[in-house]
Every structure is written in structure tokens, then in C-alpha cells.
């Protein structure tokens, strides 16, 4: 094992939620800790550090990844975090479905859940139960909000279908 020392340091350009950032960190630092401790984007959570719980899920070029095991040196693409989806005043479609379904309990895992769901809905506006299982199996929720997560994904998908139908008729 090589030591983590100055030899790994580097300047890294990142595009996060449409903004450009430059950080000087060890290239092995996982994206999670760059987001949280360097960029102060703390909506993305630390849960396990080993890609086992999904709390750290972000999108890189719209693909969900576990940021806790992705070294910053390996990031190629545009990053979207929970902060990039929407806020309380203008929530994204999935966030809106989450709020309407009153999904969250402790809420800690929900950023990751929402990012996984967002990627699912983007690719599939009519997910079946097994599609949902496959997309969400990597996201743990200790409060077990799973029944409402499933409900909210279906609600979001329906919103998306309604939106695209109304676009089609325009």
C-alpha cells in the first residue's frame, strides 16, 4: 500500500450542479468527502464508506454512483447532488412526490434514495415493481420507509407521464 502523502495531491476541476469548482486534494479522496468537507454540499450523506448503504448516491452524467468509493481523480462527468435537483420552494418532480407521499422519517438516507429514484424515473417513466426493486436495492433505510418510497416513485412516474402527455398535446 502506498502512503497517502503529498504525492497524491492534485488540482481537480469539478462541475457540480452546474457550477464549476476547483479543489486541491489527494486524488484518492472519495467524491463524497470533497462534496461535504471541501465544497460544503452536505446534502449527500456518509453512511458506510463502502458502497453498501447508498446514502452517498449522486449522479455523474445522470448515472447514480456511490460517491463514498469514487476517488475524485476518477470523476469524469457532470455531478448532480440532491441540492441540484430542487429546493423546498421549487422541488423536483421526484422530490415533490416524496413530499406529497410524506416519505421521510429520520430522513438521513433520503438524499440517496431520491437520487436513485431520480435516475430511475429519468430512464423509465413507467417502472414496474421489479424495476423499482432493481433500482433501489442499493439504498438502505433503517426507518424502513420502503412502502412509501415505492409509492412515491410510482407517483413521480405518473407525474412524469402526465407532463410528457401534456407536452405531446401542445
Amino acid at each position: 500500500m502506498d502512503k497517502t502523502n503529498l504525492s497524491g495531491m492534485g488540482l481537480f476541476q469539478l462541475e457540480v450542479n452546474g457550477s464549476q469548482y476547483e479543489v486541491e486534494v489527494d486524488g484518492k479522496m472519495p467524491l463524497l468527502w470533497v462534496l461535504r468537507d471541501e465544497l460544503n454540499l452536505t446534502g449527500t450523506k456518509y453512511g458506510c464508506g463502502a458502497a453498501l448503504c447508498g446514502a452517498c448516491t449522486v449522479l455523474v452524467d445522470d448515472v447514480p454512483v456511490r460517491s463514498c468509493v469514487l476517488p475524485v481523480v476518477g470523476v469524469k462527468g457532470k455531478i448532480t447532488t440532491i441540492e441540484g435537483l430542487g429546493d423546498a420552494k421549487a422541488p423536483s418532480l421526484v422530490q415533490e412526490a416524496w413530499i406529497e407521499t410524506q416519505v421521510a422519517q429520520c430522513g438521513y438516507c433520503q438524499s440517496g434514495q431520491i437520487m436513485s429514484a431520480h435516475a430511475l424515473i429519468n430512464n423509465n417513466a413507467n417502472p414496474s415493481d421489479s424495476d423499482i426493486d432493481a433500482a433501489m436495492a442499493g439504498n438502505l433505510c433503517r426507518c424502513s420507509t420502503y412502502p412509501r418510497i415505492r409509492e412515491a416513485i410510482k407517483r413521480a412516474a405518473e407525474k412524469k407521464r402526465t407532463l410528457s402527455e401534456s407536452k405531446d398535446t401542445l
Partner: protein
Amino acid sequence: MDRRTFIISTAAVASGVAVAGYFLVRPEEIDNPLYAILKDGQVAVTPYVIIDDAGITIITPRAEMGQGIQSTLAALVAEELDVPVTEVSVAYGPASIVYTNNIMYPEEAIRKQLIRRVSNRLNLSYYPPRLSQSTGAQTSLSDGFVKMRQAGASARTILIQAAGKKYNMNPSDLKTEDGYVILTDGRRIPYTSLAADAAKIPPPKEVTLKPRSEWKQLGKSQPRKDMPLKCTGTAQYAIDLQLPGMVYGTVKFNPSIGGGIKSFDDSEAQGMKGFIKTLEWDDGIIVLATNTWYAMEAAKAIKVEWGAPPYPMKMEEHYAAVDNALGQGEPTEVRSQGDIEAAMEGLNTFERKYSVPYLTHATMEPMNAVALLKDGELDIWAANQNPLGVRYFGSKIVGIPEESVRVHSMFMGGAFGRRQETDFIEAALRAAMAVEGKPVKVTWTREGDMSHGVYRPIASAAFKGAVKNGKPVVFDLQISAPALFASSDRRWFQNKGKEIAERMDRSVWLGMNDQPYNLPNYRIRAYKALKLLLPVGWTRGVGETQNVFFHETAMDELALEGGLDPMEMRLSLIDDADSRAVLEAVKRMSNWGSTLPEGYARGLAFARSSGAPTAQVVEIRQTEEGIRIEKVFVAVDVGIALDPRNIEAQIKSGVIYGLDSGINSTITVSEGKIEQRNFNNYPLLRIQQIPEIQVHIHENNKEILGVGESGVAANPPALGNAIFALTGKRIRNLPFRKAIKFA
């Protein structure tokens, strides 16, 4: 008179503060804890309501760990204050004895405890207040149901009086609506413009609460106050706090809890990027750096010679310490009805043994805290279930007066009892003392969190039963576990386990003293573990989580022995109407007794769980991949359902927490080390394994009951009973996955 008048004594005064002395002084002398935190333009109307130009903030002094309590407590105040709960803000408020949880810490008990402690010559004069602002054991609603409404009614009363004075009208002619006082001429005066005057008026000694028939908000599902924050990544947990100049840390723990440090070498870490320093702390080395990950990496590079743990090195020895305790020494006789020995004469009795393992909380947010020690003042930001305790603890560790400690309670990424502890706060305090003047956040790794836990006790049971002429006549259960208070006191008082083995407390038999079964010969005896084991602590459901498993599995075995239907046998043994009602409900919901398709089976369990009668039927199916949990039917009696949607969410959450403990979870010791370190070997259920759960809420109980724990305990025995019905295999030791495969 359809409005019920609460005559409020000096002990339980108008704002609901049941702490002697609070309202015995003149209002201007009252130590309203909010005075210390009010910002310019804010007015405190009672310790529960802050009003400023922006609106109304309700203080909800119980920890929000996901159970939705902030929203429901706010609704109680809002109902009586006559404001829409959707329009108020909520806040924890500061650490203060004003916010004592009188269910967990009734005044009498506090006084008795104080006397006992003092007579023990322990310097524990802080003991009662420091533990009293606690959230746990699903007591928040029982404690707050009257108190919070009184707070709202008090504030409303003085707002009306302020309006009467200002507009020269008789207060009894004035009404309120949606945050306004309505004057006799119809003008609507917003509360916000009356607050400053109202704050000068002494709160009433007596208030009248609305009868249920007049509730506009309570009894209806309300949107949770925290929901938009938690769905947009903006809810702030302690782990999210970022302050200028912050130092970041983690802890490298002895894999054997309590083993301490013999020596360590951090020379390699010292050359690493971001490294600041190491600190030796009891059981671990605190590593400080400029970024959490740098601290975690540096921690890996430290070489340590750890000490040996104070508990047995092998798992078998842990089980032996509870197994061998059964029948040893003087038991606590929890229930005793009939004459067991006489009844068993001439009957075929059968004997069974059961056990459950240690469990950990595995909160999604790992243990962490932030502390800043500067100019003799200490700020602590932490998810905690006990702000007063944290304040006291902070003052003790750092060596400054309690008045100089401010506790900022944060959202909790799960707690389940784990955040009643202070170990994760101590790590931050030690760090803050080492980098005085700078804020420091110490975040445990998942591995540290899991392997340095405070576990649900290991426990075992021995059962003897007998049936005569198709009727159960003997139920004789012995249970054994490490006593939890002894273990937690050891941590609180840092007396390192001197008296542990001698002590016994109610945690061992929790849930076993008030089950409504009526057998001719019914006995439950409890024993404490024989030696010091792993640290054990509060968990969701506490002792019920083991005892209901033992009790309800044994009930099923008794039914089998008598050739009885488990549902009908329970109904024949239970007279309590509320308990019968939940059994009848799950009987209907699950279509109990009807023939299921090939490969399906059902199991039943019942418990009065944290006071609430709860029945569960679990329906399972054999698949090629293993057993799949298809459906769970739950009926629970909560007394009064203030927020039905939240109650349903809590019950489902508890059911799945119970399923996990039945199917998956176990903490084990090997060569003195905790073996489980992350979710790979402490697996939890995932979305594809979650059954359909139907919840039926009853409101028959005379008292209002919380629901955070009620779904948990009856689930594993219901599942085990279903597994037996499906396979003929009786699994008596949890978790089930050690003996059977799940899909």
C-alpha cells in the same frame, strides 16, 4: 359543561410544566429558558411559544429521530393556540428542566432517586435533572398530550387578555381564529402584534382544554414539518454542520470494547496530508485533520497495541452467562399465578430453550458530534435524546459550570436509543479541549459505530408448559439477560463496572409484567446475567424485544401441544377487551383460519407492547430462493390517534425493524472482538424484501399511547410461528437466517 376544566395545581402548572417551583415565582422572575436564546424582536409567551414578526415558533422539546414527534407536539399546541399547525415553525429549544419528561421521570421518582443516590454518598446531586429531558420508550405523547395543549391554551389566554387591555374590551367577549384575536367589532388582530404585551401577563393557573369534538387539527393527518427539508437535502444533522476554521476528526477504536490502549505509534500518520494530531482517549485514538477523510486515512496508519476487553473472549461464554443464570440465585418473580409445581404433577410437561443475540442500532447517520470550547464557554451540537444530560456531561468532562454549556440539538439520522448515550459526544469534547478555540467535528466510521456500540442485550429463556384436556394449564417461563441500567450507569458514572454483576433491574423483564393472559398456572421469573458482558443499552422496544419473542413463541408451542388453534387459544386466555379487539382485528384482516395456497403459511403473536395491545399476523411463502415475507397484518390500540398517517408509518417502521431483528441481525464476539463492522456482515432488509403491511388502528385504550416501539416486539415471534406452520421447523434461537434461508 362539555368543556373539561383542568384544575392545575402548583405542581402541574398552566404551561404544563410539572416541575416544582417553576411557576411559584412572579412571572418576571421566572426562569423561562427561552429568555436566554431569544433574538431581537422575539417574544416568549410561555416556555413553548416564541412569537416574532415572522410568525409563531412552537418549542417541541423532544428529540426528532424520525418518529414525527415534533410535528405532533406542535399540533397539540397549535390546536389550543388556535393557529394552523401548517403555518408555525418548530424548534427544539434549549436544555432545561422545564422540559422534563414526567412519564420517564415522574417527580416522585426523581425525588426518591435523589434521596437514594445521596444516601449512597455518591456525588450525584445532578442526577435527576440531567436525565430528565429524555426522549424514549415512546413516552413523548403520554407526557405531552395534556402539557402541550395546556401550553397552547395558556398562550392563547394571555394573548386574548393582551388584546382586551389594548382595545379596552372584556377578554371574555373575545374569540380567536387562525392566529388572530377577533375583537367584538369583528376586527382581526394578529397574535404577532400582541405578543410583546402578552409576555408581560402572568400565564393563568387554570385553563380549559377543548373536548375532542371541537378539535380541528388533532386526529387528522398533518404534513410533517421536517418533510420538505428532508426531501431536499437541507435538513441539518450534526454531521452536516460546517463552521469556519473547523477541525475534523474520527476515532480509531479498540476492536474490543473497554480494552483500552497499551501503546500506539502515529509517526506514519504524522506525515500524511491534512493530519493535525492524535489524542489518546479511553478506548480509542482520536485523530484530527483538515478533512474527515484525511482523519480516517491517518487513523488507518496508526499502529496500536490494544488492551484486552473486560468481557469474555468467546461468544459461547456470553451465551453461557445468560443460559447458566436461569435458575441461579434468587429470581425476580415477575408474574405468579396458581401453583406451578402442584399443577405439573401427573401431567406431561414439555421444556423448551430460547435465545436472542446482541443487536446494534445501526443508525444511518453514524455517531458524531461537534463541539467548540472557547473562552470558557462550550457549545455542543449533537443528535441526542437527552439535552440536559448532554449539558451536564459537557460541563463535567470539560470542567466548566453547566451555565457555560449550550446544547444545540440537531436532527437525528436515526437513534433507536443509541443517542441516549454520551460516548460520541465525549469524543468531540476531548477533541475540542485539544484544539481550544476551534470548532471540531468527530465522526465515527461505520466500522467504529458498529463495533463500538451499546447493544441490545443478549438473552435466553427456559420454558415449561403443560396442557390438560385440551386446555393450557401451565405456563412457566424463566428469562435472563444482563441488566441494562447497571450497564448504562457504568457509562454515566464512569465507575467501570464495579457493581455490575450484583445489580438487577426491570429492563430484564420489561414487557413481562402486564401481559393480559389468564392461565390457571402462569409464572414468569427473571434472572440477571452472571458476569460482565458487552455494554448494553436502550433500543427500540428495549427488553420487550427479547421477552415477547420468548413468551409468544412459547404460547405457540403450548397451542401446538394441545392441538389448539393459536388464535383461538389466545382468545380463550385473554379477557381484556382492548386486547381481544386487536386479536379479532388481525383475525379478520388476515382471514385467519381460511385455507392458504400450497407453500403459504401464517403465524400470530400478541403483546401489550409498551402499553399498547398489538397483534400481528405474518404471512409467508416458500420460494425457490427461500422464505419470502408476503404480508403482515397489524392491529394496535393507541388510545387516541392524533395523526393517523404518522401512526401507520411508525407501525410499519417498527414491523420492519422487528423483521430485521428476527431474520437478520446479530452482533457476535470472536477472540474478544466485535465481528460485525459494516452492512455487509450486519445485513438489513432491502426494498425487494419488504412485505405488504396492513395496519389497523384502535382507539379503545383509556390513555393515549405512543407508537414508535409498538410494531417491533410481536413481529419476530409471529414470523417464527409462521415458519413453523410452513416447515414444521421450530427455530428457537434468533436470528432465523442462521437456521433457514430467506428470499
